[in-house]
């Protein structure tokens, strides 16, 4: 299972990276989104892969750590998703503003000499 997840993250991040290096703002933001999905998944699996293990449960007596998934990466990934979502939304606004003011969707705000 590890190899499947690793390849999936790699493909996501690689596609994102390629798109980020493209000259149009739409490609750029799509690239950033793909990269942030990849990173979120990456954080998530840093607590190692667990099957059928709850992160936290209420119970009697001291818990047995080996029966639970690591809850911290799950908390981290939630925060990262929220922050990533907010900043991407903000970027979208700037992108639209740039399109309106400069009349082009090139990242330099002007067309190159193509």
């Amino acid at each position, binding site marked *: 299972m590890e190899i499947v997840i690793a390849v999936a993250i790699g493909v996501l991040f690689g596609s994102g990276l390629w798109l*980020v290096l493209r000259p149009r703002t739409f490609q750029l933001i799509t690239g*950033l989104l793909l990269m942030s999905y990849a990173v979120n998944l990456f954080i998530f699996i840093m607590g190692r892969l667990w099957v059928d293990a709850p992160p936290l449960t209420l119970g009697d007596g001291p818990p047995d750590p080996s029966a639970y998934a690591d809850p911290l990466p799950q908390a981290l990934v939630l925060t*990262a998703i929220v922050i990533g979502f907010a900043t991407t939304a903000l970027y979208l606004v700037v992108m639209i503003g740039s399109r309106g*003011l400069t009349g082009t969707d090139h990242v330099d*705000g002007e067309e190159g000499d193509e």
Partner: protein
Amino acid sequence: MSLPSWMQHLILVPVLLPLLCGALLLPLNESHHRLKYGVNFASVLGLLATALVLMGMADGEQWPTGIGVYLAANWAAPFGIALVADRLAALMLLLAAVLALAALVYSAQRWSRVGVHFHSLFQFLLMGVNGAFLTHDLFNLFVFFEVMLAASYGLLLHGYNTTRIRAGLQYIAVNLAASLFFLIGTALIYASTGTLNMADLAVRVPALTGTDVVLLEVGVAVLAIAFLVKSAMWPLGFWLPTTYAAASPPVAAMLVLMTKVGAYAILRLWLLLFSDEAGAAAGFGYEALLWGGMATILFGAAGLLASEVPGRLAGYGAIVSSGTLLAVVGYGQPALVTAGLYYLLGSTMAMAAFMLLIELIERIRSPGAALLAVTMEAFAIEEKPDEPVGVGIPGALAFLGLAFAGCALIIAGLPPLSGFVAKFGLFHALLNWGPDAAVTPYSWALMGLILFSGLAAIIALMRFGVRTFWAAGAVMPPRLQPTEVLPVGLLLLLCVGLTVAAGPVFGYLERTSADLHRPGQYIDSVLSAPVVPGVAGGRAANVPEVGQ
């Protein structure tokens, strides 16, 4: 010595006060401008006072070992998030408050009114910066970085025009990508060590073996990319000159501070995690920082010589100063860090003053440019800002000339101002860093580069000064308002103060640098910080109570 219980909470004030003020100002619309400005101003003054008190506490006898630890929600470290105020953090808080005060006073005349929510964004920026200085948890550092960056995106676009939005588009894209690297680095560090608390990390790093060391080193290297993008190390700093040149002057002054946040994070992490006691990972990355820093100085110096526009000139100046700091950290000698911190103080304030001054100097060239009618209309702001009519200050041209000369002397590092003292300190440390150690080729290379960057700065600034003040056709004495002159004067006077009081300042910085190079004491203070007994959260911790 015990403290009154409320004093313990002072560490939280630099984060909480701007958060509350910024939130409070959000619902008010721009017609309450005076009120908003007043709240913002009061908050900045509060931050300044808090920073001074914290500095006194860190340097005094109040805290054992001079390190104040605040356990958020009463969770013992390393389980909860700890805020730590030591000498370095207090110093940086003070620097942030001083720059904020200068930028805010400067913005009173016009800039705070050319767009909406300037004051809220300003407060949130301060919250992010202060939080990044205080926090002791890597993921929390990420959160504060994002708060700071989100506010800076808004501030950069403040006074919305085509140049700013073009620069903003690239600045935001670069920083979003850098944030992703921050997350990858954090995740890798957690995977290899199982903790994100910096003190706990420093405890666990020496015990790592085999592949975990590799994983940690990869993680820290990826994390460092995020910091190095902020501090504009070559080749990660191409965004900086364009951004600085596009930002409005008070915002540019705050951006100068933000590059230093990256350098601060590097300094703190490296000296804590990769000290000599760090086992297999000891000394990791120092050489990369040294080479990167030197390349950055070279790049900045070349940029200084090549730039025509004063805004870009200032941007490359900031890159040189960042590069010097990174090289100093990479060199890894306590005495050098002392001088480096002194250099950081002087160069940050001078650079911020220069950012503010540029706009005033530009008025000599084009008197009409002072009016921002277009932006005002674009935002449909009802209340027109006070036009710069009425009596300006007398001797405007003399002031501009003197202030410019002052900035140039500090940035280029010529006597008699603080830039010279800083460079002298750096060279002294480079030449005498051990009782019997020979001066290495690295030292010579670094000294040569610092001298070369000083030369480049003086050539570039002189060229600009001569063209502006002497060779310009008809020089009109511009009309300057007291609120525009005061902050520039204040920052430069502080630099003069730094020079005059170089002895005591160096004393404080030596203690700071000694603390940084004794990570053991720092780690103990954080990990043994007592929880408040009998309060929720305190029960969960199994840390023995220590009498205060």
